[in-house]
């Protein structure tokens, strides 16, 4: 056991909690400082989800992935900033203040794993864990110019991940290189029977840049309305690079994209409204005012403890699940979700991976997005992978307006190896 000291100047507000000294043991990640998003439970270290409502909560147990990191010898040096409970695309919705983008501190780092992305992009840590419910790993990776991978749903145990939307989210690696992503995947995918939705499918793979003959599908919808033409052009350049390396590019259609965003927001807010019900002041946060009747005390705690965006999503989800509306919203969303899955399954009969931009634009200016709806719309390209449960990686792909752009590569279920290979090939191609 070695002790790694960590005393960074956190100029981008990437961390909620930093540890001055972290233990590191032998193993695949020995001596490597790793940041862990603050919605992943760490025994003895406060875990806030970027929310005031969890003030003072110190988990008595480690998330499965944290146990795995420790076993692999990694030094967990801090808990990274995030949009409250993962609800946001900018990391501005944090009770601990916004994180800034190291590529341009006047810009947001993306979200919700913005703290992890900034910590990696600024070089404070070599790797980080993020979580991705509708793009929360890939968006900040794209905005900050690093690599971020959302694994196949079920490949990484969610045990200890404080749930936002259980059926959509996955924990995944963020790093500056694809090889580091691969290295982390090897550690994180060790099976955990405590997560009933997890599958025993260990990732044990060395990235292979050979992509000759690979068929890459490019859905027209990924370059549709709302996608900044300059971003689109950078991504097309990237796709052309893959073509030069021997891949075959096939344009295709994804009709269900029209419903994806609605299906996503109904599903995630519904699940969130239920997941966040446990924060009632009885068990977490400062002692409740016991003079009040319990339901008033609950109301008061939730009113003052949750931020605006969280309250908005709880209200939306509560509405969507209400008697008389369930069929109209939640059930419809699940049907739409099945369509998205079917579209992907259909496409993967003819192509090996699907590529497109990660985000429709480059990083927003801090404070730029004030309208929640326009913020939601920016998730349009990342949510399909979560709805379908397929693996998806974002890899840096040039710049637009001097800001990083991300190329997104999606693959069939449990073919994380394949998307990582393509990302690796791309990374090799760019660096040469």
């Amino acid at each position, binding site marked *: 056991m070695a002790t790694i000291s960590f005393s960074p100047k956190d100029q981008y507000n990437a961390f909620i909690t930093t540890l001055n000294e972290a233990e590191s043991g032998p193993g695949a990640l020995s001596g490597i400082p790793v940041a862990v998003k603050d*919605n*992943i*439970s760490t025994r003895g270290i406060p*875990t806030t*989800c970027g929310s005031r409502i*969890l003030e003072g*909560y110190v*988990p*008595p*147990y480690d*998330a499965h992935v944290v146990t795995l990191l420790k076993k692999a010898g990694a030094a967990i040096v801090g808990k990274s900033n995030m949009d409250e409970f993962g609800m946001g695309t900018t990391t501005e919705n944090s009770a601990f203040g916004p994180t800034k983008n190291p590529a341009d501190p006047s810009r947001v780092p993306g979200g919700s794993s913005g703290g992890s992305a900034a910590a990696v992009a600024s070089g404070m840590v070599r790797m980080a864990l993020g979580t991705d419910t509708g793009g929360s790993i890939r968006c900040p990776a794209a905005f900050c110019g690093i690599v971020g991978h959302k694994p196949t749903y079920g490949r990484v145990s*969610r*045990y*200890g*991940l*404080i*749930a936002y*939307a*259980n*059926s959509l989210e996955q924990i995944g690696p963020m790093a500056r290189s694809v090889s580091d992503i691969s290295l982390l995947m090897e550690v994180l995918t060790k099976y955990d*029977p*405590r*997560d*009933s*939705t997890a599958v025993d499918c260990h990732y044990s793979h060395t990235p292979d840049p050979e992509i000759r003959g690979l068929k890459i599908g490019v859905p027209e919808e990924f370059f549709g309305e709302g996608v900044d033409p300059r971003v689109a052009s950078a991504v097309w350049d990237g796709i052309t690079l893959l073509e030069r390396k021997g891949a075959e590019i096939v344009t295709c259609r994804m009709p269900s994209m029209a419903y994806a965003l609605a299906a996503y927001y109904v599903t995630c807010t*519904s*699940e969130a*409204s*239920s997941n*966040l*019900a*446990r*924060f*009632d002041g*009885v*068990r*977490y946060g400062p002692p409740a005012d*016991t003079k009040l009747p*319990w*339901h008033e005390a*609950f109301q008061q705690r939730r009113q003052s403890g949750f931020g605006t965006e969280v309250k908005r999503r709880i209200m939306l989800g*509560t509405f969507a*699940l*209400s*008697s008389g509306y*369930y069929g109209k919203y*939640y059930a419809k969303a699940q049907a739409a979700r099945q369509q998205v899955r079917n579209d992907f399954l259909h496409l993967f009969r003819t192509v090996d991976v699907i590529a497109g931009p990660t985000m429709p634009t480059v990083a927003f200016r801090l404070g730029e997005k004030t309208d929640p709806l326009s913020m939601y719309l920016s998730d349009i390209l990342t949510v399909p992978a979560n709805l379908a449960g397929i693996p998806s990686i974002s890899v840096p792909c040039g710049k637009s307006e001097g800001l990083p752009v991300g190329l997104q590569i999606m693959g069939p279920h449990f073919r994380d190896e394949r998307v990582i290979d393509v990302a690796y090939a791309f990374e090799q191609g760019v660096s040469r």
Partner: protein
Amino acid sequence: MTDDAPISRPASEGVTRWPGEKISDIQRQTQPANIRMDFSDDEVIIGLEIHCQLDTATKLFCGCSTDYRDDSPNTHVCPVCLGLPGSLPRVNKKAIGYALRVGKALNCTVLEESEFARKNYFYPDLNKGFQITQYDKPLAVRGYLDIEGDDGEKRVRITRVHVEEDPGRLVHKGGADRAKYTLVDYNRAGIPLIEIVTEPDLRSPKEARKFLNKLRATLEYLGVFDSEKEGSLRVDANISIQPKGWFEKEGKGKEGRGRAEVKNISSYKGVEKALTFEVTRQKNALRRGQRLETATRHFVETRGITTASRSKEMEQDYRYFPEPDLRPLRVCDWAAGIVLPELPDARRARFLGQYGCSPIHARTLTGDLRLAEFYEQVAETDPILAATWVADTLLGELNYRDMSVSKVSPGWFRALILLIKEGSVTDKGGVEVLRSLLDQIRESGSCETPDECVGRLGLIVIERTGGAGDADDPVAMAAREVVAEQPQAVADFHAGKKEAFNFLVGQVMKKTRGRAKPADVNQVLLGILGKEG
């Protein structure tokens, strides 16, 4: 006059005004005004929702022990059953297996695919803000249980059987009214519960009780339930009074008179009590011409009454949706392979044949698993005698003491029956021995042997040593004393009053402290009285 003009009627017409009741109240409550005293054309309609704790070693979604009853609060907990952020449920297969046994024993169809759902509501004992239960895809549906109803054999239909987790428990030190704060104990959180819902097929509180007894016996025979554990059973009962035949004609879901949903009944006796109270309350309301609205009521066990709950403002929308942390259950094949043990009806038939028990004894003995097993352990002494002694005498004495048969050792009970069988103790003496031994067990947990007890109490049967006139015969001596002391009874006897003789027999028994054989007493008394006559 147009069609929608209100038809006015004097408020007091045909309505009894009760003290404290405003005329406007009566107007509101009044349907066509009439006072009803006769309910012979009505019937009581009852449906039950029963929650039983499944007797597994560990909780439904984690490995915590379910044996929490004697332990300090919050000692049988882990991140999962505390509902800590990030923890995930994992289904206890044993609990599902138990539930499948119940589904099968209740003749239900096990669904091809069933699923857990979240029932969302806020309450301080609910650690996650939702309960994991089952909603539109329960484990098993459409079964029945045959019971001995009010009018003979009756088939009570089972709507559904599903599995869910028990919430925690609120504790008010010093009582709910006096405590200044509420404590929460999560030891109970996550205990597997099975919910069994019946169709509204029961027609009286007594029938409801009988159904519950049969259900309890069935669950215990299956080895999935321990009725002796405190709080292991909770019942919600729906009850209404409808015109006869209404239910058959209109069926479920049709608007009849409003029903009461009585919540929070936690004992077998309580169910009958709560329902009996409701029948009276509803009939009284109908008598007063009131309209009965469907409403939730709470049973107050200590007072034996039901009280209205704050209804509308607390009405819940549970916002059920499939539990995203668990996969659907596909357990049809598993269910098909389950072989059930002998159930109460089968055992009753066997007792009739194998032991020659009377139908009533067979029903009583098999109505409780422990009693049935106890009987089988003592039956070899003399099946019929043992049946009487277990089903009538022992059961009565146990109920009187609120004791369980599990406290009684078959060994000494066998010895007691043998003493009675061979005539060493009279029936009366046997009861005295039994009472003494049960009292000892209740006080100290153990007891002497029946032989010791008979010796100590001096209950060994008095054997006759001579005839009625024999000076040394103890029975004859006692009889002569009684005849001398009771001239009036003797005179009555001679006047032909049969009761007088029974009285004299009783007096002799008293004098011998029950140790004389009744046959001896009869013979000796008749001898003495005959001589005199």
